[in-house]
């Protein structure tokens, strides 16, 4: 591995105070970044500063604090827009996260555009947040929900896609990077194929935007959704990016303060983008915190983050593969992101996570909110190690040693 990347990762660790924590006397090896990332000092400081010095409600009141809070809140939106190369910051809608962003699209664009005879296409590798909203809506509107199958090696079945994408398809909503398989789906190509039949495209970027450069214009995405907490930002904040003409045509999602132009007893008219979709007092500190996270990541460079994780993956994939009885889910090391889910003979993923925890290693165990995908592979749960910019090969070694220990403990 290139020493430059490693030296940089080691230096970046100092930005994350929690990484100095000990778990049961051992150094924390945090490999649950797919669930949520840790937060760097600049983000923590931004939140602290906001509450100490600038706290006020936004877009109301003409006092100094409200002006400051509003400026910070809108500057963050601008940083986020640049981060994903959105044509305008007015196309960046603050939500509480990926889940709310998808529910927003389902309940506004979906209700206005879907009915019997229409089809929404998703894939077998979706997170529950890109399945359940469509189940709920389908039961109300009577459209058909279809799934692109996943091949045994964890890729989307592109041949099946030809038959599934038809003029009946109104929306193709897919996961950019699988939170279980690590598969990086060819988002630009999938989007072009969907557009060719006239379908709109929603890309779930929850596991891509934090880990690689994502450019909404290059992808030609109609909608892109992601969560702040997986990319060094606070919880409670996420983004819906949409093409202007779509967002403008969509009815509002929630009604209340902040999202209106004019309210009379007889009815209301809506504010312009993006505020039309931001009813009520928003998560102000969180949005500003996400702005700080995006600035932090931009400073490091998303190309570097991606490269570093690919190097960790190249190191970890064969090492894990050497462990007897360990089966890695998903594609080989070249078409995947920096996360590895696996099952270990005779050791339930929960037990594995518990033994790893005793070694200070944090991994995720369970179905990772992707039950249909686990069903597809005939398993009920798996364990997942997911990397971020501050992880090191040494931590991979600690993981592997702890896995072997778990095998010893649970051997029958």
């Amino acid at each position: 591995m290139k020493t430059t990347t490693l030296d940089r990762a080691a230096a970046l660790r100092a930005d994350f105070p929690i990484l100095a924590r000990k778990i049961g006397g051992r150094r924390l090896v945090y490999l649950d970044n797919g669930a949520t990332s840790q937060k760097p000092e600049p983000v923590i400081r931004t939140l602290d500063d906001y509450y100490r010095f600038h706290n006020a409600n936004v877009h109301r009141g003409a006092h100094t604090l409200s002006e400051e809070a509003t400026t910070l809140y809108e500057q963050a939106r601008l940083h986020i827009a640049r981060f994903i190369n959105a044509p305008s910051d007015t196309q960046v809608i603050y939500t509480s996260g990926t889940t709310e962003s998808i529910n927003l699209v389902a309940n506004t664009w979906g209700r206005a555009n879907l009915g019997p005879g229409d089809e929404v296409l998703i894939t077998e590798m979706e997170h529950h947040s890109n399945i359940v909203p469509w189940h709920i809506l389908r039961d109300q509107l009577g459209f058909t929900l279809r799934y692109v199958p996943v091949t045994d090696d964890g890729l989307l079945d592109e041949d099946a896609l030809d038959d599934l994408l038809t003029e009946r398809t109104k929306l193709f909503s897919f996961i950019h990077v699988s939170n279980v398989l690590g598969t990086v789906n060819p988002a630009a190509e999938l989007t072009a194929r969907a557009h060719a039949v006239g379908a709109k495209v929603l890309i779930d970027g929850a596991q891509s935007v934090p880990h690689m450069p994502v450019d909404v214009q290059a992808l030609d995405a109609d909608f892109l959704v992601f969560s702040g907490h997986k990319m060094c930002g606070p919880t409670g904040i996420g983004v819906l990016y949409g093409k202007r003409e779509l967002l403008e045509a969509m009815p509002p999602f929630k009604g209340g303060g902040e999202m209106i132009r004019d309210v009379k007893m007889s009815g209301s008219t809506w504010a312009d983008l993006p505020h039309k979709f931001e009813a009520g007092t928003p998560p102000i500190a969180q949005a500003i915190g996400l702005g700080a996270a995006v600035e932090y990541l931009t400073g490091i460079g998303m190309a570097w983050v991606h490269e570093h994780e690919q190097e960790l993956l190249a190191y970890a994939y064969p090492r894990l593969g050497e462990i007897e009885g360990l089966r890695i889910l998903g594609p080989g090391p070249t078409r995947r992101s920096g996360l590895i889910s696996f099952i270990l003979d005779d050791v339930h993923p929960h037990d594995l996570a518990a033994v790893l925890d005793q070694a200070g290693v944090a991994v995720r165990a369970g179905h990772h909110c992707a039950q249909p995908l686990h069903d597809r592979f005939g398993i009920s749960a798996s364990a997942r190690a997911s990397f971020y910019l501050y992880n090191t090969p040494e931590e991979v070694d600690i993981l592997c040693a702890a896995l072997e220990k778990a095998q010893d403990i649970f051997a029958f």
Partner: protein
Amino acid sequence: MNPVILEHYKHPRRHGALAAPTVRRRDVNPFCGDEVTIDLLLANGRIEDAGFDGRGCSLSLAAASILLDNVTGRPIDAVRRMSSDDMLALLDMEIGPIRRKCALLPFSVLQACLAEEKNGHE
């Protein structure tokens, strides 16, 4: 790892279905997909025999083993009065809010068995 849990996991008591159970109930833990099925043979107001089957982590399966061992032979009414804290006390270890769901899965299946039996008689 807690040695008692590990021992029950590797050598579970009352493992396997009963030939002619009075009630059988299965449930899953929605957080991890673990599942436990419990069979009870009820007679004379008592749990005469019990058996379980399932797939899950050491904690959920050891909890089934420990629980069924404890309740077999006891009066149904007394077992119905058991609380989840009583169940956790049987395990005698510290359990956080996430693993608690694993630890309590067999207990909730057992209580569902007894509730079903009650309804069946009313």
